[in-house]
């Protein structure tokens, strides 16, 4: 079943040297699956994630033929109507917990605020729900964490708290923008496993934005590869290593590998034709 259907999405920024197209006509669909979006910095992957929530601020301009969430088109919705979509139906986890948690509020207050904003419940019920959510993301001693401030938390805990906060309104779609790139490898796995379980249990759709090809190949079901604002290739995650586009191959070959030592790493040679070629559709 299709949860989200995006067609011909553009994001533009007017500048002194003419209009800069950051995302150029991207189309894809999302079912109850884990969809990865990979690319280098500046390829438009994060902007695609933000544009789904209509979070492009002026002077940026976004246009799309359609962004429909379970048949409900988001494009004509007003800012006020979008508030009911953001958090409630589509949630987003940002890259760095240091910058996305409020430093002067306790973690408990922040999670309860997120819950009470979307549900008419009392403080007591909100507290119980928040503790339950923190336990769901494997945080031990949740009542103590509720009283703590963000600076008292490690990066991995902070990111799990962010995930708890985003999942508490029970959204249908979770957009995770580089959720683990600020974390150590050993903690990375843990956070991914937690996210994976929650997504499976709740039957959610997940959009996983990352620059780490190996991670995406392991973790996702389907992958969109973006280059210069367009999708250059769509493939199944387990077949990413057999990818055909020279850009994807170049990215994979430029990674150093422990099992295959080499004297020099391959360097990506960019072909101007890649950015000219029309976007591949990621629709099913």
């Amino acid at each position: 079943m299709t949860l989200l259907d995006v067609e011909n999405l553009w994001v533009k920024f007017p500048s002194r040297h003419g209009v800069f197209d950051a995302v150029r006509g991207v189309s894809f669909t999302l079912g109850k699956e884990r969809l990865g979006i990979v690319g280098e910095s500046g390829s438009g992957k994060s902007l695609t994630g933000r544009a789904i929530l209509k979070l492009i601020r002026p002077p940026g301009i976004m246009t799309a033929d359609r962004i429909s969430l379970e048949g409900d088109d988001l494009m004509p919705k007003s800012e006020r109507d979008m508030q009911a979509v953001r958090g409630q139906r589509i949630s987003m986890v940002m890259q760095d917990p240091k910058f996305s948690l409020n430093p002067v509020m306790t973690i408990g207050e922040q999670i309860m605020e997120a819950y009470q904003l979307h549900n008419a419940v009392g403080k007591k019920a909100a507290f119980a729900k928040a503790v339950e959510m923190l336990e769901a993301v494997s945080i031990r001693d949740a009542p103590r964490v509720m009283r703590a401030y963000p600076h008292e938390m490690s990066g991995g805990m902070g990111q799990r708290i962010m995930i708890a906060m985003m999942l508490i309104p029970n959204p249908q779609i979770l957009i995770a923008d580089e959720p683990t790139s600020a974390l150590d490898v050993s903690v990375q796995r843990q956070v991914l496993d937690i996210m994976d379980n929650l997504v499976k249990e709740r039957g959610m759709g997940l959009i996983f934005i990352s620059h780490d090809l190996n991670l995406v190949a392991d973790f996702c079901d389907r992958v969109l590869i973006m280059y210069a604002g367009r999708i250059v290739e769509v493939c199944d995650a387990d077949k990413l290593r057999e990818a055909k586009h020279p850009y994807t191959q170049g990215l994979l070959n430029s990674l150093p590998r422990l099992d295959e030592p080499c004297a020099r790493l391959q360097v990506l040679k960019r072909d101007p034709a890649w950015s000219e070629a029309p976007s591949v559709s990621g629709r099913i």
Partner: protein
Amino acid sequence: MSMISVENLDVWFGRGRDRVDAVKGASFAVKRGESFGLVGESGSGKSTILRAIMGLAPDWSGQITVDGKAISGRREKGFYKQVQMVFQDPYASLHPRHSVDQVLGETLLLHGFTDIDDRVVKLLDDVGLGGKFRFRYPHQLSGGQRQRVAIARALAAEPEILLLDEPTSALDVSVQAEILNLLADLRVEHGLTYVMVSHDLSVVGHMCDQLAVMKDGEIVEIMAVDALRAMKAVHPYSQHLLEASV
């Protein structure tokens, strides 16, 4: 004889009950021309070791020897001609309002060179940037180009040892490959000794001959890269780290 040796190094911050022991009893030695890696999670003290060698962490005890000379107290001027450091984030380590020419020119002047003009051109060539980047400001450069400028600045003093603190972690994989190739070439051309900090085992595996695995301020294992490739880690923590990164 070893180029850098560190013996029983303790580094701490704060005092009294606020004291944090960032590095506890670390010892390792790097031969001339070798490349040595330090890996571990954030907070394990790997960058702190580099900072202690450079003199950026004031409270330490133990013994640091560079090219046979023990280091103590304030570093002599000659020390910085021998040892230079490249920092993690090229966005933060370059002055935003100094052009590349100013950055390199000032460094060369401070090291007492007189033929600054020729040397700036040569340094830019060495790191693969070329003359057209000479009068640009950092915001006119990409992340990879900035890191090249930071490497050129470190090479300005013609050092024998480069300390590299996560030189590619802020860069894309395609740019990372270019910078790692550049560092490998420079090591051969200039006969440099590297001490490299990274959280990425495959980067260290590619660049280094030996590595130390750190956890909670202590070195838990020192091994050769061949052992790493063969997945022959002895300490359970290094095994865990190795599993997580393959």
